[in-house]
């Protein structure tokens, strides 16, 4: 049953050094507040899983939290590179980061398989791609009925998954609405899970088939108002496309980045997305 904790306590309890962590949210509902808390608590050697690393992992990587990143598309959407990710991969700053890369289809299926308790996902993928030559976690199996060759990847089963959502009720049941990405899968696939929410309400007011994650399938819930900024929360606030564009200049340079981190994450506990937002 979900416990209501402060974000500090939830991260302190469930995010251990060397853990495998998935922070999900497909463009929408990216758990920035939680990511900043992980940075503040100076977690180290994390294996970070995420389909689209986005600015949140750029920040975690630049802050030295990551040992390895498992991903399928690592860019600043519509803007360009993730400079901290590139600096780590290309030049080893602040230290070398290992990467393991997949396609979106592979990772989406791997999250699905993780939620489904399976050791692997099977799909029709990677045909003609050279990704299998650089990722030994991509294998191929044969369909016993048709003989067709299908791709297989290990399921995603993180030690802890962290997502942001619109709201929870007082029993800890959580409503996710809009672009739901692989958030439900991330939660169900993980040993532990933290959900940050905009607010706690008496009644979720959910549609009969809404994406609701029961409280008993979640470890901890923490309120983090505007916890997804500069990404967005459908029904609450919009995406700060401006900040995404500004991030390019901030992250391009090690000093500017470090200064931003100091001012906005280490000192700016209450302002998750930074002064620039």
């Amino acid at each position: 049953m979900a416990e209501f904790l402060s974000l500090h306590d939830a991260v302190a309890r469930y995010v251990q050094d060397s853990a495998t962590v998935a922070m999900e949210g497909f463009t929408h509902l990216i758990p920035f507040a939680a990511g900043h808390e992980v940075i503040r608590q100076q977690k180290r050697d994390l294996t970070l899983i995420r389909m689209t690393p986005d600015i949140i992992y750029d920040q975690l990587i630049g802050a030295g939290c990551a040992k390895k990143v498992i991903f399928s598309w690592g860019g600043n959407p519509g803007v360009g590179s993730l400079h901290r990710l590139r600096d780590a991969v290309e030049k080893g700053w602040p230290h070398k980061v290992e990467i393991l890369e997949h396609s979106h289809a592979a990772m989406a299926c791997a999250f699905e398989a993780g939620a489904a308790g399976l050791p692997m996902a099977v799909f029709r993928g990677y045909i003609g791609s050279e990704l299998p030559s650089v990722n030994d976690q991509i294998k191929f199996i044969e369909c016993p009925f048709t003989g067709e060759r299908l791709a297989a990847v290990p399921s995603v089963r993180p030690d802890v998954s962290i997502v942001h959502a619109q709201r929870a009720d007082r029993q800890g049941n959580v409503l996710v609405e809009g672009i739901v990405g692989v958030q439900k899968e991330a939660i169900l696939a993980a040993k532990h899970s933290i959900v940050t929410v905009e607010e706690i309400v008496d009644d979720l007011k959910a549609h009969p088939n809404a994406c609701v994650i029961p409280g008993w399938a979640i470890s901890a819930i923490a309120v983090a108002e505007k916890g997804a900024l500069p990404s967005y929360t459908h029904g609450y606030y919009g995406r700060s496309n401006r900040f995404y564009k500004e991030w390019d200049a901030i992250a391009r340079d090690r000093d500017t980045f470090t200064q931003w981190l100091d001012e906005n994450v280490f000192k700016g506990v209450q302002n998750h997305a930074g002064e620039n937002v």
Partner: protein
Amino acid sequence: MSLEYTSSEMMTVTAARALENGTTCFVGIGLPSEAANLARLTHAPDVVLIYESGTLQTKPDILPLSIGDGELCESALTTVAVPEMFRYWLQGGKVNVGFLGTAQIDRFANLNTTLIGDYKAPKVRLPGGGGAPEIATNAGEVFITLKHSKRAFVKDVDFVTTLGFGRDGKGRDNVPNIGKGPTRVITDLCVMKPDPDTKELVVVSLHPGVNREDVMEATGWEIRFADQLESTPEPSEKELEILRELKARTERAHTGE
């Protein structure tokens, strides 16, 4: 006609025209998204646009900056989870056209969005595959649009992130349950199509004011031209007007916070 337009506009309009009304299109972000929405706002009001964020049959009023902007969800018929998007809608064979951009493309229309240089010690690390590897093989056919340059159009890509026709042009031969692959590449200079036999990209149409030398200079291999080389029709006034309005609306929305 003596309309003024840029080569980028020419590219977008030509890419848009490639999409027939009623087509179901899995849309990549950036140039493909611009072209696909222009198509929807002009000759193809019933084109169905699908984005990998799970937004099905979406009709954004402004162009999304990211693949999952709120606008895409709000204007969609419905929004499904990302695993469902890739499993039921793409892999399930519901997509007629996958519309992709790329960083590098080679003569067999293989796409590289992974890295420049060597994998272990990359010169430039690019974003990676994203949806493209399976869009390119599971969609009925693939359109590609990008700006023409020697850096982008290389004889052999540094890395095949996404299959065109393979390093020898035979990458789709005898593969079951695979789409036709790239059927056209639209740039700011020309339109290319794969040779029916060798699958090597061939210029089939030059944009107005562009000559063969322009294309040859911007292409990293000895590019061939079709015997019946056509001239790409110019954009219409209406297309340009709608495209410019769309881009202006988008610019206002993305900077206005």
